[in-house]
């Protein structure tokens, strides 16, 4: 033991057993010793983090197989578990609680072997704490959570599946008891999380008590008296419940029951604000005439729920309705083992029905509600609308392409609601519905939605408040939402004071309704998606106005500097991050407007590029990352290329990899190979196959530069020798070639960064430069500086019988050029081996295009 206590550092496995023992000594309260609650359990989080960081319970380490060490560790973990179990059996609830919590952590952390040998003991132990004798709620909650962790771990072992299922079955009754008989909300939450684990990992275990579970959950939801979080957890369990049967019918039945229940609640709630006919219509869709009504949700409990609602008819049963709608969402978006038949039309009808109710009284009806009731309803309605939109999103997600037959209906619902929707949160949701539709349904949907999206985005982005709100201080009205408001103040100080004169609406801006930044973000995002999905389709009418709107938005968002997420630590909800989001969104939309297909060159390209360049300088932000990406993707717009696919392969594979390995081989293969390859390649092209695989831009370059080059050649001087010349020299006078010359050749990798900025696609350069070297007669000499690319181009122009289609051959030839060069240097290299090593190391680091790529600039420098 003493030996084991001596360990090297914190990574040493030997340190772990003593560390664990130490933890037991210091942090675990002894079962029989009364100890102050404060000191023992407030340090638990620290204990857990040490356990997890050092993996103290894992009992295995890839580096060490020392049996002594393993034994020591094993006994330490044994002690740990012994300690936990004694805590579990303590009659002090705080100790018990500590033991239960730590057992949960142990389930997660311990080794597979230990888990498999002892999980049933642990399960029994934990189980006893959710059963009647136990009365502390913290203990019950902790037991539920630990049991859930235990089951989660257990689900990963397929070999004990059967045993695990029967064990899980034992849990159902106690959990139901907790749900039915306990009266503390927090305990239900714990029970719900355990139930969720059971349904997810051991669906078969629920099978027998399906109806009871449904009834228990439904009664809680229908009573509607609890916090949203608890209800959501319970609702999620209800949504997943059909998985335990796993057949088509139970899913449909559950969905039908939930929808009927929602409709019943709505009928009651909306009495007086909608026509009676609505009720029948909804009912008709849900229940086929002639078929039996399914039993109400949760069996008899539905009636009780109904009576509950009646007694408190002052209130809208929002919590119940929204939880049930949440159930529907989850049912539509969670996986299910078989295909199901979803009542799409009823769900959509429900959504439409809810979105239609805005608290106004239908003209045909007599006032039925008291004004108090109406006020209450109006205050709750936004929540219901939000959930309906969520449900719509879930339908789109769940149905995917199969929404097609219903898409027209969905579009009509959405566009109609767009016209009346005024609350920021709802508008944001509505925009996300739009985005979902565009994404999942593609261009056909874009044609339909475009007019509405554009109208709404225009009004949101272009609202007078939106414009002025960035530049005029008079706008700082109380009507503004806090985030944008505060931010704006910051902005005014910095740089926009001088601009307020430019705004004609300074005085009246207070009277306009403002659009919160978050809504603007949603609007900009939707425009971006519209552009990416549907810009090509019949967009002429709106394209130019959208482009200019997006540019204006981007400029406005960026003109006061960049939103920094870490601006102010003292304000927890500093609007800067919202602002940064807005900037990012507007720049993204701007990029989309540049890249989206159009007949003309993007009119605001230069301004946009300027914005992106500025943004890129903000190193370390997401914005800079995006701007970098934007600049990168716009490069293609500026230098369009349509490269043939089949040439891609060899050009990509041949160069860099393993150049050093192939080096010697090429040294001796000599130049014949190159020539023969070249010839064959040339012949193949001459046979009249595909002519010119390069893009238009390249040809245009050629046309333009042809004449210029001829003039230039006359004025060129011999001492501006390019590498092409160097190579020729070395080939013609191998004996005279010296290592020095070749070292110079290698120096040309210095040029590489510049090459990247040349506007010519790389492969063509390789081809042309190489073609140059293959013709000893060329002897091109050029003045340095910018002419290099022209020279390369024109060289290849003169050789245009050699087609780029034979890139593969050319690449080989390229390579052989290097080889040939080296072979010619060999005699000298033997004299000066240092230069050879230099040569080799350089060429292995760098691809040969750099070697071949002639750059007169550096060459003349070294001269």
């Amino acid at each position: 033991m003493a030996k084991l206590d001596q360990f090297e550092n914190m990574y040493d496995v030997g340190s772990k057993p003593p560390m664990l023992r130490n933890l037991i000594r210091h942090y675990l309260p002894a079962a029989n010793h009364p100890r102050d609650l404060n000191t023992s359990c407030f340090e638990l989080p620290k204990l857990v983090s040490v356990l997890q960081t050092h993996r103290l319970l894992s009992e295995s380490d890839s580096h060490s197989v020392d049996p002594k060490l393993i034994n020591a560790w094993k006994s330490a973990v044994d002690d740990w578990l012994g300690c936990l179990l004694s805590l579990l059996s303590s009659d002090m609830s705080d100790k018990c609680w500590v033991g239960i919590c730590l057992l949960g952590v142990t389930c997660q952390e311990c080794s597979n072997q230990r888990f498999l040998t002892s999980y049933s003991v642990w399960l029994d132990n934990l189980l006893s704490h959710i059963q009647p004798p136990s009365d502390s709620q913290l203990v019950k909650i902790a037991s539920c959570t630990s049991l859930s962790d235990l089951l989660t771990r257990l689900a990963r072992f397929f070999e004990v599946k059967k045993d695990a299922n029967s064990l899980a079955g034992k849990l159902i009754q106690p959990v139901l008891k907790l749900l039915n008989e306990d009266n503390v909300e927090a305990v239900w939450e714990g029970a719900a999380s355990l139930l969720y684990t059971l349904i997810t990992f051991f669906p078969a275990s629920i099978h027998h008590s399906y109806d009871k579970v449904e009834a228990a959950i439904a009664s809680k939801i229908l009573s509607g008296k609890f916090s949203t979080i608890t209800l959501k957890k319970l609702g999620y369990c209800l949504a997943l419940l059909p998985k335990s049967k796993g057949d088509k019918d139970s899913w449909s039945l559950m969905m039908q029951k939930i929808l009927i229940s929602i409709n019943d609640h709505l009928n009651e709630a909306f009495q007086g604000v909608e026509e009676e006919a609505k009720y029948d219509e909804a009912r008709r869709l849900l229940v086929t005439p002639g078929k039996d009504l399914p039993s109400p949700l949760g069996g008899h409990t539905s009636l009780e729920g109904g009576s509950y609602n009646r007694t408190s008819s002052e209130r809208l049963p929002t919590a119940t309705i929204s939880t049930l709608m949440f159930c529907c969402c989850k049912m539509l978006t969670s996986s299910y083992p078989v295909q199901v038949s979803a009542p799409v039309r009823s769900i959509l009808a429900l959504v439409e029905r809810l979105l239609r109710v805005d608290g106004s009284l239908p003209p045909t009806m007599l006032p039925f509600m008291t004004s108090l009731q109406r006020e209450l309803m109006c205050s709750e309605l936004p929540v219901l609308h939000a959930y309906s939109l969520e449900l719509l999103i879930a339908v789109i997600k769940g149905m995917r392409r199969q929404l097609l037959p219903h898409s027209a209906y969905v579009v009509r619902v959405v566009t109609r609601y767009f016209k009346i929707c005024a609350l920021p949160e709802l508008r944001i949701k509505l925009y996300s519905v739009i985005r979902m539709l565009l994404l999942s349904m593609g261009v056909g949907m874009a044609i339909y939605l475009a007019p509405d999206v554009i109208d709404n985005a225009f009004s949101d982005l272009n609202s007078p408040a939106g414009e002025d709100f960035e530049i005029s201080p008079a706008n700082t009205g109380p009507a503004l939402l806090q985030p944008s408001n505060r931010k704006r103040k910051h902005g005014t100080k910095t740089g926009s004071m001088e601009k307020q004169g430019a705004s004609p609406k300074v005085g009246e801006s207070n009277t306009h309704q403002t659009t919160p930044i978050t809504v603007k973000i949603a609007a900009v995002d939707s425009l971006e998606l519209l552009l990416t999905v549907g810009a090509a389709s019949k967009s002429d009418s709106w394209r130019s106005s959208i482009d200019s709107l997006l540019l204006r938005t981007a400029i406005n968002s960026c003109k006061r500097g960049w939103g920094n997420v870490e601006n102010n630590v003292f304000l927890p909800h500093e609007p800067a991050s919202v602002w940064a989001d807005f900037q990012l969104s507007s720049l993204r939309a701007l990029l989309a407007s540049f890249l989206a297909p159009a007949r003309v060159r993007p009119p605001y390209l230069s301004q946009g590029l300027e914005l992106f360049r500025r943004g890129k300088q903000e190193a370390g932000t997401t914005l800079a990352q995006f701007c970098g990406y934007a600049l990168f993707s716009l490069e293609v717009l500026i230098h369009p290329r349509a490269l043939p696919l089949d040439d891609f392969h060899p050009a990509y594979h041949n160069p860099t990899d393993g150049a050093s390995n192939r080096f010697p081989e090429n040294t001796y293969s000599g130049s014949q190979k190159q020539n023969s390859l070249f010839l064959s390649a040339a012949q193949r092209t001459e046979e009249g196959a595909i002519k010119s695989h390069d893009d238009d831009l390249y040809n245009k370059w050629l046309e333009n530069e042809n004449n210029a080059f001829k003039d230039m050649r006359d004025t060129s001087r011999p001492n501006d020798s390019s590498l092409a010349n160097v190579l020729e020299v070395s080939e013609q006078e191998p004996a005279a070639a010296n290592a020095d010359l070749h070292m110079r050749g290698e120096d040309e990798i210095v040029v590489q960064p510049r090459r990247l900025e040349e506007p010519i696609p790389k492969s063509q350069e390789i081809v042309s430069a190489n073609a140059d070297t293959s013709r000893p007669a060329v002897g091109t000499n050029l003045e340095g500086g910018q002419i290099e690319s022209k020279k390369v181009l024109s060289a290849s122009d003169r050789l245009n019988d050699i087609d780029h289609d034979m890139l593969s051959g050319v690449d080989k030839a390229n390579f052989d050029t290097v080889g040939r060069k080296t072979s010619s240097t060999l005699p000298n290299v033997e004299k000066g081996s240092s230069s050879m090593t230099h040569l080799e190391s350089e060429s292995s680091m760098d691809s040969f295009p750099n070697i071949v790529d002639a750059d007169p600039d550096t060459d003349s420098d070294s001269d």
Partner: protein
Amino acid sequence: MNVVIASSSIDGGIGCWDLQTGAEQLRYKTCASPPHGLASIGCCFLACSQLRDPSATSGHVLYWSWSKPQAQVKSFPAEPIKPLAANSEGSYIVGGGSSGDIYFWEVASGRLLKKWHAHYRAVTCLVFSEDDSVLISGSEDGCVRVWSLFMIFDNVRQQQASHLYEYSFTEHTLRITDIVMGYGGWNAIIVSASEDRTCKVWSLSRGRLLRNVVFPSIIDAIAIDPGEHVFYAGSRDGKIYIAALNAESPPSNNYGLHIIGSLTDQSKPVTCLAYSAEGNLLLSGSEDGMVRVWDVKTKNIIRMFRHSKGPVNNILIVRLPYPFTRTESKVQASSRRHESLRPPLEKYANSSDEDMDNKAIIALPDTIDLPSYLSSQLINDHVKQLQQQGSSAAAEMEVKRLKLDGQRSMEMFQQLKKVYDNLQEFCVNELLDGQAMEGSKGN
């Protein structure tokens, strides 16, 4: 694994080969397909319309599952169906009838969702766009029409619009033989081939003809290079012509404007083409019953599959989701279960069954439940709760503890009391025994 699927107009079954290794897989039996009649439905199964003798009044569509050679499901649509197409998800099948009607079925229920009169003569080919929202059809009358499926399903807009289609291209003078669509959503190009010996390139976004390529012979099949550099046109003279899209075409050559070369094997007429982006291979089916695999770069044939004596008229390249082994019982079992759920295609739109209209059979998205452990989070939460002593839970626990403490104190008190009593008794006795003294108070 990528497999090549080929069928013929003469019953030779449906051949299936591994593209990589060339090994032949299962051969699906009894199939005589018209051109464009073979479709893979979302890579889940194969569907093929069948050639019928001219007197037949109903169509014939067969389904095969990947694992069984016999046709699993037989459907008999209201009229002979030639071209078939499915969307990428495999949720819908469209078929083109000989009367010019297009039928739109839902695969999961077999219901005929829509039927509309698309052309004056028989429909010859049907193509879905990349995002499945647009359908392109070609007909014997030489007309190519572009349909937005949203329009097809939107009764309200249909009434406002003068026609159902988005575009109707009428420049071809004879039967359309093949249509392919390029990349890029609504910005894509469409290439159509016709018996009038031309191929025409259309812009979807502008709705007009971009290029007209006249070939030496009738083109029956086209395939487009994924980079849209060129397209390949299989002709009745046995050559596969290479025609320029983005590529520069030389001003003069042997074949005609925009034609920049050919692949040739002195074979019989080329009837169908398919392009495999993986390895840039072009597959061609010929009337001699062979499927040739070309390397488009070297223009050499790298492999040949012998399908049948009769002409091959459909080739598909399908990526199978799972390894194709006949022994894999698990996969078979699950796929068999799916098959039993897959009903045949209905003959007529059945509007009386309103209940089904309201519903859609959907496969819910596949999500994975990742294991998540809650204990450590729970500890943090509870400790926080305990630290705020105000929480009822903490108070309750404290009460419990105090109760126990109290109980323990009680016991201790009892003990002490007992000791005291003993002591007092002892003292009293002592005092009584000894001399009498002034008694002190015990309490």
